[in-house]
């Protein structure tokens, strides 16, 4: 009985991975794009490529409310069900954001995995410094811990005032949705 159950689970798992491998990821991405456009968020001019278990996007321009907000050189989305990872690299924000924070972000990595099912974790690195964030799905709370760079500390004091300064020199931010 146990042997049969294991066999069934093995076949199920195989089917699951085979389906992810064969799934039309670009077409699925287009569906996600259409859903995002309802919130006035458009990813434009990108080149989308399927890579086995992941989807890669390059040279994308992000528009929010038709305003050019960022240019993203590379991004990769891996959806394995048990482990899902989004990696975004080489981001340049629109010059309209120059008053609020440095424009270049080196990388953003977001992970949602079975070993931490209640939280989506995120870390980012860029001219602004380093940032770790987590979003609790159940409580719908966002917690951000940021270690600002020298540039951020010197030129963007006004933006840092929006965050709470910790004793160790880092800054934190909490928000409920």
């Amino acid at each position, binding site marked *: 009985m146990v042997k049969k159950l294991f066999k069934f689970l093995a076949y199920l798992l195989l*089917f699951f991975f*085979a389906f992810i491998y064969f799934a039309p990821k670009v*077409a699925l991405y*287009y569906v996600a794009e259409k859903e995002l*456009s309802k919130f006035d968020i458009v*990813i434009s001019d990108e080149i989308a490529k399927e890579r086995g278990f992941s989807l890669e996007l390059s040279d994308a321009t992000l528009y929010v409310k*038709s305003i050019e907000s960022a240019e993203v050189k590379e991004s990769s989305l891996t959806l394995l069900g048990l482990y899902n990872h989004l990696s975004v690299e080489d981001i340049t924000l629109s010059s309209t954001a120059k008053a609020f924070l440095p424009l270049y972000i080196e990388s953003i990595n977001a992970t949602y995995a079975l070993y931490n099912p209640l939280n989506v974790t995120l870390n980012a690195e860029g001219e602004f410094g380093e940032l770790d964030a987590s979003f609790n799905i159940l409580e719908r709370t966002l917690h951000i811990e940021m270690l600002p760079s020298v540039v951020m500390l010197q030129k963007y004091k*006004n933006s840092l005032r929006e965050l709470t300064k910790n004793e160790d020199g880092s800054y934190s931010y909490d928000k409920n949705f």
Partner: protein
Amino acid sequence: MKMGVIVMIKISNKVLLSSATKLLLILVVAKALSLALFLYLPSDGVDIVKKRNYQPKYQRVDLKNMIASTNTSTKRDPIEQDISVSITNMILKGLYGTSKKGFVIVALKKSPSKTSIVGVGEDFSGYTLKSIAATNVVFTKLNKDYILELEKIKSDKSYIQRVNKRTSNGAFKKSDSSYSSDEPRVVTRDDIAAYAKNPKQIWREISIVPLQNGKKLGGFKVTKIKKGSKMAQLGLKKGDVIIKANNIKLKSYKDALTLYSNINDIDTMQIVVLRNNIEKELVYEIN
């Protein structure tokens, strides 16, 4: 003994074959499902097509000066016209029209105040006006084309001096009421940079909310303005609805932000506000 081995091999082949068939079946079902999904899902995403339509540069033309100058130029003796004038000695002060229709306002560098209006096909100092473009015009002489660029507007020094005289709170000395209705107000690039660095300061001095006209944006309404502040010096009043800036209708946040992002390339800014349901034009010179 041999029989036993053959039976064993047959059994193992059977198990192997059955497992392989199952695996293959799983793969085929997975592929078929993804193919069905592929046929069902959209084949195109969402893209924003950047509009490349030409937006002419906003340029003010002083009609009074133009008319006066025209009179001067018509009175001028044709013999006085120097036909050996080089194109580099000419200034293009204004232009109006399309490529084959319209007129331009030109002057010579040695006497920039003496302007002449030249239509397409007409002559000026030996050059024939061939066509008008967005920011330049083409003259021809002896079958050669010469491009004359539009003169960059420079502000009157007296304005700059006036602006530099500030009160202790940083506001301009000249009161809002002392500007005549069509007199350009002066905004310094330093002020713009200071506001860009500290955007909160803007919202301390002025409150602007988007005015929804159904689903569309009808402009931006000024709901509060701090007296004596730099923002108050801009001539805006509480209740004004900003509907246009540099001939661009403000129908979205994008329109406003596009203008803001190009502020460094703009010398003159014109905004149209609805005040008591009457359109009013406010003009700024950016130094």
